[in-house]
C-alpha cells in the first residue's frame, strides 16, 4: 500500500519560499507582457497617425513623450521599483487615485493653483510640481520613502493628471485620454521594472542623484515661470501718424500690382470732385 503523504497543517518554509518565487516569476512575466503590449500599442498609434496624416505632428502621444513629462514619470517608476514589494501596490493605487480625482475635480484644482504667480499662463505649474514631488521622494533614503510617498503621491498623481489633460494636442479627441493615461502608467511600469530588476548598490545612489536633479529642475523651472518678466499682454508702442497732407491719405494705391493694365475701378479724382480719374489712355463711356 502506497504511503500517503501527511497533510501539512502549516506551510513549510521551503514551500513558502517556492510559492513566493513562483509569484515573483508570475509578476515578472505579467510586467514583461505589459511592457510588450505597451510597445505594440504605442507603435500602432504612431503608425496609424503616420499613415492617416503623413506626419506625427498631431500624434495623440506627442506630448506624452516630451522630456518634461518623461522625467517625473521615470522618477515615479524608480520610486516604485525601489520600494519593498509589499508597498508597491498601495503606492501605485494612491497615485492612480490622485490621477483620476484630478480629472474629475480639475476645475477646483485649477482654482486652488490659480493664485500662484504665473500659474494660469504656465499650465498651473503642474510640470514643476510633479518634478519637485518625485525628486524630494527620491532624494530620501530608500527605507524612508514609503510613508512620505503615501502622503505625496496623490498630489503627484493630480499634477500628472492635470498635465495630461492640459497637453491634449488634438483639441478634444475622444481617444486622447484613454490612450495617454495608460501610456503614462506604462512608462512608470517600465522604469519600475528596470529598477526592480537591477538592484545593484549603485542604482540606489544613481536614483538619489536623479532625484536631486528633479528637485533642481522643478524649483528652477517653476521659479523661472513665476519670475517671468512679462506676465501680461503689453500693447505695441504708439507710433505717431504722419502729418495730414490733404491728399486723402489712405486712399492712394498701395500695391503696384493692383495698378496693372486692364479694366479697373476709377479712383478718386485729383480735383476732389468725387469723380474718379481713369487710367491714362482710357475714356469714360456714356
Amino acid at each position: 500500500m502506497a504511503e500517503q503523504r501527511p497533510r501539512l497543517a502549516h506551510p513549510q518554509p521551503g514551500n513558502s519560499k517556492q510559492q513566493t518565487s513562483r509569484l515573483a516569476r508570475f509578476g515578472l512575466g505579467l510586467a514583461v507582457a505589459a511592457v510588450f503590449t505597451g510597445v505594440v500599442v504605442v507603435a500602432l498609434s504612431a503608425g496609424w497617425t503616420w499613415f492617416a496624416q503623413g506626419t506625427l505632428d498631431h500624434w495623440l502621444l506627442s506630448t506624452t513623450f516630451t522630456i518634461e513629462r518623461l522625467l517625473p514619470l521615470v522618477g515615479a517608476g524608480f520610486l516604485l521599483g525601489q520600494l519593498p514589494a509589499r508597498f508597491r501596490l498601495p503606492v501605485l493605487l494612491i497615485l492612480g487615485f490622485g490621477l483620476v480625482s484630478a480629472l474629475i475635480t480639475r476645475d477646483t484644482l485649477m482654482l486652488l493653483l490659480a493664485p500662484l504667480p504665473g500659474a494660469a499662463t504656465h499650465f498651473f505649474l503642474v510640470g514643476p510640481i510633479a518634478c519637485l514631488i518625485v525628486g524630494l521622494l527620491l532624494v530620501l533614503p530608500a527605507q524612508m520613502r514609503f510613508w512620505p510617498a503615501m502622503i505625496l503621491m496623490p498630489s503627484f498623481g493630480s499634477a500628472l493628471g492635470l498635465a495630461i489633460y492640459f497637453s491634449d494636442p488634438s483639441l478634444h479627441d475622444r481617444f486622447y485620454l484613454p490612450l495617454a493615461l495608460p501610456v503614462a502608467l506604462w512608462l512608470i511600469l517600465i522604469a519600475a521594472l528596470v529598477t526592480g530588476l537591477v538592484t545593484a548598490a549603485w542604482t540606489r545612489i544613481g536614483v538619489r542623484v536623479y532625484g536631486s536633479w528633479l528637485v533642481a529642475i522643478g524649483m528652477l523651472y517653476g521659479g523661472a515661470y513665476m519670475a517671468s518678466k512679462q506676465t501680461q499682454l503689453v500693447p505695441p508702442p504708439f507710433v505717431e501718424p504722419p502729418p495730414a497732407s490733404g491728399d486723402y491719405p489712405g486712399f492712394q494705391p498701395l500695391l503696384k500690382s493692383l495698378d496693372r493694365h486692364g479694366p479697373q475701378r476709377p479712383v478718386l479724382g485729383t480735383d476732389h470732385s468725387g469723380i474718379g480719374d481713369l487710367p491714362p489712355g482710357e475714356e469714360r463711356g456714356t
Partner: protein
Amino acid sequence: MRDRNKERLLAAGRVAAAAAFVALMPGLAQAHIVQGGSGGFLQGFEHPLSGADHLLAMFSVGLWGAQLGGRNVWALPITFPLIMVLGGILGIAGVPLPAIETGIALSIVVLGAAIAFVWRPPEWLALTVIGLFAICHGYAHGAELPVAADPADFAIGFVIATGLIHLAGIGVGLGVSRALGDRMIRIPGGLIAVGGLYFLVT
C-alpha cells in the same frame, strides 16, 4: 611584469587622450550671464558645457568626491544641484549678488587645489564648500532663466548637463585611481587649479 607595465601604459595613454580631447575642445569660452535672447533644452544643455569655468568646476566636484571616497562619492553631486537651486532662485528673483564671476573662478581654484593637495576635510566642511560655490554657479544659471524662450526646457537641459559632468568627474576619478593609483588624480586637480587662476586673473 611586462604585461602589467603594458596595461599601465595603455591606461595612461587613455587618460592622456581624454585630457587632450578636453583641452582641445573648441569654443571653451568663459561662462557668462546672457543679457537676452532665446533658450531651450539644447541651449540649457550647452550652457555648462560651453563655458570652461562651469565645466571645470562641475568636473572637479565629481573628481573630488571620487578622491574623498565613501559616502562623499554621491553626497557631493547630490548636494551640489540642491544648493544650486538656492543660487538659481536668487538669480531668477534678480537679487544682486556681488562678484559672482569671481566666486565661480575661485571655486575652480579651491576645488582643483583640494584635489591636488589631497585635502580631506570632514564631510560637513566639504559640503559647505561645495554649497557656497553651488550658489555662485546657480546664480549665473538662474539669472539667465527668465529671459530664456522656454525656461522649462532650459532648466532641464542645464541641470542634466551639470549632473552628467559630475558623473564624468566621478567616472574619471574612480577609473584613474583604479588604473594608475590615487596619486594620479592629483595631476588633473593641479591643472584645474591653474585654469581657475587664469579665470581669476582675467
